[in-house]
Every structure is written in structure tokens, then in C-alpha cells.
């Protein structure tokens, strides 16, 4: 059996003393899976992705990527899409492609150019001239044009129009390497539900429920969206 792409063990993170955002969280992602990391605001989804990508330092616990402890070299196999644009507003889309090509050996420039064309984005445009939604599309295209092993997508469809949303989801399914895994965080569960293989509900810094999306739907006779509403309504009332 293939080794997991990602293993998080007893991961703890708090920004303030005695207020844990993640509390001994255990999380495993197998290769070739699209996993939905779902949960209410402030439950620790983005914090988990930032810990995996190395932007935050855990208070305790371990993160293993492709069998190796997380390090700067892990970034060579992780493609991270943050929820906010991270490019300098003075850069052009072409300059961003040059940047990715220089630093990531797995970046496929021709694929990136095709996707930009599909979304009618001018490669000569400067970031400051683009709308918020278009900036997000550019960033997503760059991230998905890498042949990475683990894609971390933090709210990839939150700020784009429904038409682009469909293209983005198709892009996520169509462009990632079948041996790679994708972790998506979102509130728009109904929109992404169709592309998910697995899911994990995060609540109060722990995995409240996880499993195979199809099996859970079959067992409960409910969509993930409905189940999400039920689980979190229950956990709030408890």
C-alpha cells in the first residue's frame, strides 16, 4: 500500500495562551484523494493548512509529508493556495509565471498559459489592474499548473462568480496528478461536494467526523451539505 501523502499527529496550535485553535488534531491524507476540509468559521481549517505549508509553527505535534518530516524542502511537493492574494501588485501575470518557473521545477508553463486563455486573462496585465476575483483566478491557475503531490486550496471558490467556480472545479479535477492529493477548505459545501472523494469536518480544533464522501452519503441518505448543517447544529446545541 502507498504511504500517505500527509500525516498530522497530535497537532496543537494556539495564538493565545490556553485558547487552542487546533487541539491534538490527527489527520491523514492518502494519495490520489480530493479531501474537503469543512467546518464553521474559526474552527481551525486555515490554521491547519498554514501549518502544513509551513507558514505557522505548531506548538506541538508532528507533520509528515510523503514520509518525511515537514521542512522547507517539503514545499517542492506542496502547492498552496492561500485565501488572500500573495503577489506584489506591480507584477504582471507573465512575471508571476517566470517566478513560478524559476522556483518550482514542477511548474507547467504551457498548461498555465492554456488555463489563462480559457479564463480570458491577459498575461501582460499587472496585478493592480485586475479585479479581486480575477486575481484569485490567476493565483489558482498558477497553483494548479504545478505537478505537485499535495495541493492545499484555502477557499478556492469563495470570491469568484458561479461560472468561473464551475471552471475552477473542473480545473481542480482535470489538472491534478492522479497520484497527488488535494485538500480543499470551503463554506460552499454544496458547490464542491460533487468533486470530493473524502471529507473531514473540523470543529473546535479537532476532526469531528471524517470518511469517504460517497459512503457517508449512502449511509445517511443525506448530502454532505445537509450532514454538515446537522452535525454543527447538534454540536452547537450540545
Amino acid at each position, binding site marked *: 500500500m502507498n504511504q500517505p501523502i500527509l500525516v498530522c499527529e497530535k497537532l496543537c496550535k494556539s495564538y493565545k495562551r490556553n485558547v487552542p485553535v487546533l487541539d491534538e488534531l490527527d489527520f491523514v491524507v492518502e494519495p490520489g484523494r480530493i479531501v474537503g476540509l469543512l467546518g464553521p468559521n474559526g474552527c481551525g481549517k486555515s*490554521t491547519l493548512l498554514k501549518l502544513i505549508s509551513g507558514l505557522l509553527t505548531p506548538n506541538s505535534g508532528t507533520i509528515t509529508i510523503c514520509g518525511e518530516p515537514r521542512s*522547507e524542502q517539503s514545499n517542492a511537493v506542496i502547492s498552496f493556495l492561500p485565501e488572500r492574494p500573495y503577489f506584489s501588485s506591480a507584477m504582471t501575470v507573465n512575471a508571476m509565471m517566470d517566478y513560478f518557473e524559476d522556483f518550482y521545477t514542477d511548474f507547467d508553463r504551457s498548461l498555465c498559459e492554456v488555463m489563462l486563455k480559457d479564463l480570458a486573462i491577459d498575461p501582460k496585465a499587472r496585478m493592480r489592474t485586475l479585479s479581486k476575483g480575477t486575481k484569485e483566478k490567476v493565483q489558482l491557475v498558477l497553483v494548479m499548473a504545478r505537478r505537485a503531490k499535495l495541493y492545499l486550496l484555502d477557499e478556492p471558490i469563495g470570491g469568484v462568480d458561479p461560472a468561473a467556480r464551475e471552471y475552477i472545479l473542473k480545473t481542480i479535477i482535470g489538472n491534478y496528478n492522479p497520484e497527488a492529493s488535494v485538500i480543499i477548505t470551503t463554506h460552499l459545501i454544496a458547490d464542491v461536494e460533487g468533486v470530493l472523494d473524502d471529507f473531514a469536518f473540523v470543529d473546535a480544533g479537532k476532526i469531528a467526523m471524517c470518511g469517504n464522501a460517497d459512503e457517508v452519503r449512502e449511509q445517511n441518505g443525506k448530502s454532505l451539505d445537509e450532514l454538515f448543517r446537522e452535525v454543527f447544529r447538534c454540536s452547537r446545541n450540545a
Partner: protein
Amino acid sequence: MFKKCLKYDLKAFAKIWLIAAAVMLVLSVVCSIGLGSFINATASMAVIEGQGSEPDSLQIMSLVARMCIGMLCYIVLIYSLVIFLGGTSIMVLIRYYTKFFTDQGYLTFTLPVRRSTQFWSKAIAGFVYTAASGVVALISILMAIGSVIIALVMTPNAAESFPIEELTSIFTPVNGVCGVIALLLAILLIAAIVFASMMMNYLVITLAATMFRKLKILSVIVSYYVVNNIIAVPIIYVGTYGLMFALMFLAMGLETMFAVPVLAWLCIYALLLLGIVAAVTVGIILANFTVLRLERKLNLA
């Protein structure tokens, strides 16, 4: 990867810095001409007064006009030098903060590049631009002094009233090979002090940005004030500048104290080298603290 990081860090400033340096040099040329004209007018007046004759009203009006222009040029030159040098330092620090601790840090720290490599690339690029700005400022100052000398040389009999020989000595080569070696070491000492100061600034920014989640810019300013007083004043400034002053006094007294001048020069070299080693060591220690902080305590929330 280091070469790639350095390429982007150098490219980031290239355009704006080249424009600023070109503007600085053009301003220096214009101001030097204005200063030269002022000195020429003042020297001519002094010569006329020295000959016992009274200047006519036209000469006085011309002198006043050239004095005003000369003063304006002097003020513009001084302010533009301060803005140019200060602007370069601020630009370097803003880039460091922006690339590491704002949203752009999401990209910087998800590149497959070691944090120490990222840090040194920014530090070296910043040092290159600071040093280049120092060279441009030196050229501007030498141009201004040169224009003053030319104005005095062009004025008949001005040597009697103005110390032209002392001014021209600035451009004459330093006291043989020993002097040249001392001058090079002194330049290296200044570069080492600049390096140590830059490393302190990076440490302050890193400490503030990794310790405080809110009001980061305010905390950078407060931390700068605190660390500057705790680290910079006693170690960098008192240590290295004190050493430089001590050197100057020693350089004056040693040649008369030692029967063999070579010994005097060797003492000067040893002290200069000690200053360089001290400043570089302090800089490297501060840089290592910064890298350690970036590796262990980075929290880009």
C-alpha cells in the same frame, strides 16, 4: 536557489534605484555649478576688497543673486543626499518587511528555499544597494568640492584669500602604499559598521513581526527604539565608532611615538582590522538570531 533569490531581490529595486541615482547625480552637477558660481563671486569680491577698491552696485547685485542661488544649491544638495541615502535604507527595510511579514510572505515561505537562504539573499541585496548609494553620495560630495576648487582656481589671486591647497589635498593620493592600505581598511570598517547596523534592523523587524500579531508596524518602531538602545548604542556605535576615533588620535600620535614608522602603520592596521572583525562578528550574530527566529517562530496568521 540562492542565485535565483538574489536575482529577484536585486531586480526588485533596480529600476527605481537607477532613476533615483541618476536624479541624484544630475542634481549634484546642477548644485555643484551653483555652488561654484557662489564661491567664484565671493572670491572675486574678497579679491576686489583686498585690492582696496569698492565694488560697484552691479557687482553687489550679482554677488547677492549668486549667493542666493549658491545657498539654495547647498540646501538642495544636502537634503537630496539625506533623502537619497535615507530612502535607500527605508526601501530595503520595507522590502524585507513586505516580502516576509505581509501577505506576500505566503509566497516567500512556501518556496522550496531555506529560510536562511531567503534571509541572506535579502540582506546581501540590501547591502549592495546601500553601498552603491554610499558611492553615489560620495561622488556627489566630491563633485561639489571639485566645483568649489575649480571656481577658486579660475578666480585670479583667490589663493591669497582662500585655502585652495588644503582643499585640493582631498584629491591627492594618500601618503603612499601604507596610506592606501589604511584607507582601504577604513572603507571596509565603514562597510562592516553599515552591515552590522542593517542586521540589527532586520532583527528588530523580525522580532516585532513574530512577537506581535496586531499593530506590527507600531511594534517594529517601538522594538527598534528599544533594541537600538540596548544593542546598537553600546555595541555597534560606541564599539566601532569609538574605535575609529581612537584610531584617528593614534594615527596622529604614533608616528612621533615610534622611531620606526612601519610599527605605527602596523598598529593602525591592527586596530582597523579589530574594528572590522568586531562589527562583522556582531552583524553575523544578529543575523543568526534573525534566521533562528524565522525558522522557529514564524507565524503568518
